[in-house]
């Protein structure tokens, strides 16, 4: 037990350092770096044992950061590295192969944001008014690319309580020289008649093609549908997760609240969830590094990734 605890604290420290050194990195990428390091330091004797310990490590990380992306990223990492022939007799050689695959995976996903930005920026026309929700680094990257292409656009950002992450987004956009307005979460319906399109990020993309994102996204999607404005989602492919929620209540508790809340609070029903689920019928298109997908195509991609 003590050994495990020690490993756990070591892991958590490594994870936190990763997050701190590069605040622009997605939490899932930091998690995968941690897992790779864990793989390197692991002293297991069998491949099955290795896999078990990686699963355990992913669990630990979700207890630090309960976002959907960490758990999906971890699972995809595990799948990717074991999706090769591990028939070598020597365990050290197998491990080396897995480590190499892990590096490859990490490389691929660090390029995914650029790919997404390249696909999405063409949908932003000159003079467009964009509405976005809370602070999303992928959306920021897309808007950076569009600005670099000399497009003129204005952005409305929701304040996004309870952590007012929207203000952070506004700051970053101001630094780019993009005219930005911060609006209240309650003013989404009011502002929608002025905007041309809505772009949001996602914490997780589920099997049905819907997304899990910061609370307030579902509202925005319903209002955009009512106003007939396109609702675009930008997400990297490691956020695809094997979940199939039917409605808001069907999302598992471990994703709904922040990790500290889950660990410390006993009465979860008194806590307010920080994410919500947007069904696929309200989403126009998803921009991922696998291409531009319609919500029904997400399931096909998931089948390819996971089966």
């Amino acid at each position, binding site marked *: 037990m003590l050994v495990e605890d020690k490993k756990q604290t070591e892991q958590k420290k490594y994870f936190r350092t990763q997050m701190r050194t590069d605040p622009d990195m997605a939490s899932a990428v930091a998690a995968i770096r941690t897992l790779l390091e864990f793989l390197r330091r692991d002293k297991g004797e069998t491949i099955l044992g290795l896999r078990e310990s990686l699963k355990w490590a992913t669990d630990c990380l979700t207890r630090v950061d309960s976002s959907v992306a960490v758990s999906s990223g971890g699972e995809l990492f595990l799948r990717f590295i074991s999706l090769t022939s591990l028939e070598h007799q020597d365990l050290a050689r197998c491990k080396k192969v897995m480590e190499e695959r892990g590096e490859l995976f990490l490389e691929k996903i660090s390029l995914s944001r650029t790919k997404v930005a390249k696909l999405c920026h063409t949908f932003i026309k000159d003079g467009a008014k964009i509405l976005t929700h809370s602070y999303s680094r992928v959306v920021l990257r897309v808007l950076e690319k569009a600005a670099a292409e000399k497009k003129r656009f204005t952005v409305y950002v929701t304040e996004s309580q309870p952590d007012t992450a929207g203000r952070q987004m506004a700051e970053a956009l101001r630094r780019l020289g993009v005219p930005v307005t911060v609006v209240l979460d309650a003013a989404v319906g009011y502002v929608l008649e002025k905007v041309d399109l809505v772009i949001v990020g996602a914490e997780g993309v589920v*099997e049905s093609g819907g997304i899990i994102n910061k609370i307030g996204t579902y509202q925005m999607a319903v209002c955009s549908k009512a106003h007939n404005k396109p609702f675009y989602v930008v997400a990297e492919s490691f956020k695809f997760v094997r979940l199939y929620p*039917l409605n808001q209540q069907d999302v598992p508790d471990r994703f709904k609240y922040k990790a500290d809340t889950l660990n410390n609070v006993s009465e979860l029903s008194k806590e307010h969830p920080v994410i919500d689920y947007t069904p696929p019928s309200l989403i126009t298109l998803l921009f991922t590094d696998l291409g531009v997908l319609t919500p*029904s195509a997400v*399931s096909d991609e998931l*089948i390819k990734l996971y089966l």
Partner: protein
Amino acid sequence: MADCGEANGPERKNEIVRAKNEEKELTKEEKQRLRKEKKQQKKQKEKKDDKGSSEKSGREKTLDPLSASQVLSTQSPTQKVPASAPIPVPPSGAPSHSSGAPSHSSSGAPSPADKPAKSKAELKAERRARQEADRASKQQGSSSSSKTKAPASDLNPVVKRLPEHVQVDDPAVVKRLAKKLERQQIPLRSDYGYKVSLFSHLHQYSRKAPLTQLLSIPSSVIHPSIVRLGLQYSQGIVTGSNARSVALLHAFKQVIMDYSTPPNEELSRDLVNKLKPYISFLNQCRPLSASMGNAIKYIKKEISNIPSQYKEEEAKTKLLECIDKYIDEKVVLAAKAISKYAIEKISDGDVILVYGCSSLVNHILCEAFDKNRKFRVIVVDSRPRLEGREALRRLVQIGISCTYVLISALSYVLPEVSKVFLGAHALLANGYVMSRVGTSQIALVARAFNVPVLVCCETYKFCERVQTDSFVSNELDDPDELMVTRKGKTQLEDWHDLSTLGLLNLVYDVTPPDFVDLVITDLGMIPCTSVPVVLRVKNVDQ
């Protein structure tokens, strides 16, 4: 003369467009006249331009299948349109028509009777001449005349043939079917009662006249277990997609056990031929379901893959094993896998709505109850089958608290429902769900109330067919079942006497994928639109 045909082309086109827009219906005489005139035009065109314009003659050749009323045509509308050209002829008279038939001068309307008589001999001579020319040119290897044949034969495979059971109003098809059954020594079942016109292309049989009454005892052609199975199907003793397929497979096991290879025959070929009349017989008793179709395909494949060096006993044991394995994998284990996924979706305090009696849904609910989930069930039922009563009986027996309503009370109970679980008869390749009639109504109203609809279906019920409405292919049950006797009085007792009254007892309907939130299969939970992906993956596996 020949040129005037070409020159008046654009003029003719306008009339064609007009005729198409007017959408005049073609009567039988007009169709015959059409055919004759088409032949005329073809001859003239061949005469004047033997090797050229291969498309035109190819087009005209493919116009012939038009006479069959319901052939799916992949031809463009412009190709169909020349057929309607002669329609303005009767009202408008000569000019437009004569342009198409150069053998007549521009004087008044030629009598249709003259034309065929005059050119029948000509036609024959021309045809013979053309055949000789084709044969000669084929030997030379020139492509131009074979080109005239090529587009026709290219287009032929594209025109799919409809299954016979949806062409009952076409006498040619019915005759063909009768001949086939005569060959196989199976009695033909006759249709019963007045058929509603929208469904006149389907069979409608009476329960009181089962096919087995027309068989001689002992029947030498049909194996007795198949006769029993046919009776059970037609009388409704064995119902439900899974039950029918499993019963079919058990009957086939019996057939295989009693089978002995005749001398000078190979088991792999002869057994398949033996099964064909059985399948026709069962089809006559009750149309085959999609799951039964897939099971039969599997058996036929297994039988034909038996290597010839197997001895009879070995081959038979292997086949029996295959059938057992199929039932085990596709039905029993699939049900277990589906229950595992479905139980994740049932939470405590749920109110679940089910429709009719689906063996799979009942299994899921029983398993969930065994795993101590707290939920209650609302069973929705409908006439005339009242299958919900069977489901209600099964659920109450193990202790689930249930409510029973008829489908007319659906919108009344839906506000308190949290999920709807539906079974399926088949899942079509475009994502539509084919199930018991009433299912699409439940899905529609549930969508209006924002209640999630979950369909549970094993993968062996997935079929390659595509259907967007419930009319094209369905099953008509005995219309007398709709009569109800209450307090000694039978309503609709003498419905046969009223010539304008039709009773419609549909069995299936299709639900569009927009109304279905989730499909639970043994491969996992997929959205309705991903059914073709699963079919693709399955085909790759096989």
